[in-house]
Each structure stands twice: as structure tokens, then as C-alpha cells.
């Protein structure tokens, strides 16, 4: 088993249940994930897609759905040909309650066949995670334009 390429951690003042809802409900995702919506029934083995205005930008398969503790899916960017030709990587969200805080641990791994996604992901997740934290703690997500991330070809 290869080691994860990225591990991101943020502490959010919320409950595991609310954070779980934010990670799986499009009404939340639209606000913190650049307007994206989930297209999936969240059953293990079902297809997963993140879509904006009905067009999927990222697709995958649901690997784990264990509320409110562990969520995992494969992840492949499909908007441009360069990314579409890469192999899917794997995203895992782990939620741990620590008193009034929830520790959200995100690992992203299996980039062996996805060098371009590796670069994009390293710029995207910190923005998404701090926006998610802001949304849950203050009720307002951060409006970060995708162009601010400096990802080439997206």
C-alpha cells in the first residue's frame, strides 16, 4: 500500500453530523466547493460526480459511506482531455470529534497515474477546506474564484 500524497487537517467548531451533511449535501457543496453539486445516491459502489451547472467536472465511485465518520470516493477530473486521460485517484474524509471541535482529516492518494491532478489538488483542497470551515462556523462560505487558485488547464 502506497502512502498518501496529501494529508489535510482542519478543526471546525461544529458537530460530526453537520459536517457530514456538508460533505454529502449539494445545498452545502454549492457554497464552499466552487458551485459544485453532488450527483450520486451515496451507496457504496455507486457512481459519484461533482457537477457545476449540470456538467460533471469530477467523477468517481463511492468507496465508503459510514456516517458521520468516514467517507471515501475515487476522484478523476474530466473537464479537459489531459486530466480525463489520467487514472482515478482516491479521496478519504475522516471525522473525529474533540469536544466542541471536529477534526476533519482529508487524505488524497493514488496519484501514480495522475500527475496533472496532483498539482491541481494541492491548490484546490486548502481553499475548499477553509471555505467549508468558514461556512459551518459563520454561516458564510468564502467566495474564492477558481481563477485565484492558479491551476493550469482548469
Amino acid at each position, binding site marked *: 500500500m502506497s502512502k*498518501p500524497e*496529501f*494529508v*489535510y*487537517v*482542519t478543526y471546525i467548531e461544529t458537530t460530526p453530523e453537520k459536517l457530514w451533511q456538508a460533505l454529502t449535501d449539494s445545498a452545502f457543496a454549492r457554497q464552499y466547493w466552487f458551485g459544485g453539486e453532488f450527483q450520486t445516491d451515496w451507496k457504496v459502489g455507486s457512481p459519484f460526480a461533482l457537477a457545476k451547472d449540470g456538467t460533471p467536472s469530477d467523477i468517481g465511485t463511492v468507496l465508503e459511506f459510514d456516517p458521520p465518520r468516514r467517507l471515501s470516493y475515487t476522484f478523476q477530473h474530466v473537464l479537459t482531455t489531459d486530466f480525463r486521460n489520467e487514472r482515478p485517484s482516491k479521496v478519504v474524509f475522516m471525522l473525529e470529534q474533540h469536544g466542541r471541535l471536529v477534526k476533519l482529516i482529508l487524505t488524497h492518494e493514488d496519484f501514480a497515474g495522475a500527475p496533472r491532478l496532483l498539482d491541481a489538488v494541492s491548490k484546490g483542497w*486548502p*481553499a475548499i*477546506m477553509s471555505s467549508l470551515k468558514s461556512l459551518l462556523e459563520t454561516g458564510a462560505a*468564502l467566495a474564492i474564484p477558481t481563477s485565484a487558485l492558479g491551476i493550469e488547464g482548469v
Partner: protein
Amino acid sequence: MDDVFKALADASRRALLDRLHARNGQTLTELCDGLAMTRQAVTKHLAILEAANLVATIRHGREKLHYLNPVPIHEIGERWIRKFERGKLAALSELKRQLERRDE
């Protein structure tokens, strides 16, 4: 946020973050390799970095791996850098990078 600034206000700790930035997911032994710091000193610095959430650790089999966690730094940026300034700042830091590279 105080923790983040205190953690960053030390050259040894910044050097450890640089090493993780160059190669993410290292063990303590790998991080100590080639550093002019004792293992105990590195352990202490890592504990401060982890308390500030600048370093995240996970268990991978029998190993404890250390990762650079840029989320708190991103949050600091969001607090003081207004979003419409981001594009310009990105362009400026890219220009600085290009110019400095040419000097090398």
C-alpha cells in the same frame, strides 16, 4: 492563529516545513536525516508545528508520517487578503519568481 505565528517564528521549524514541502509524508528518521539538529530537537519542533496544525500526522502501517498542512496558512491569507486582490498578488509573486530564477 497565535500558535501558527509562534510556530513559524523559528528558522528550524520553517526548515522542517520546507523539507516537507519538498517531500511530503516523511517519518521522523527521514526528517532528521542530514539536519544539524538532534532527534529530540526535531521531535520538539514537530510537536509545536503539529499543535499549530501546520503539520498533520497519520499512521501508515507501523510508521508515523508527517505532512505539511497548508490549511491554516490559507486561512490567514483569507483573513487579510481580499479576494479581488488575489489575482494581482498571484501575478506579482509569479513575476518575482520568474525574475529571481533568471538571476540564478
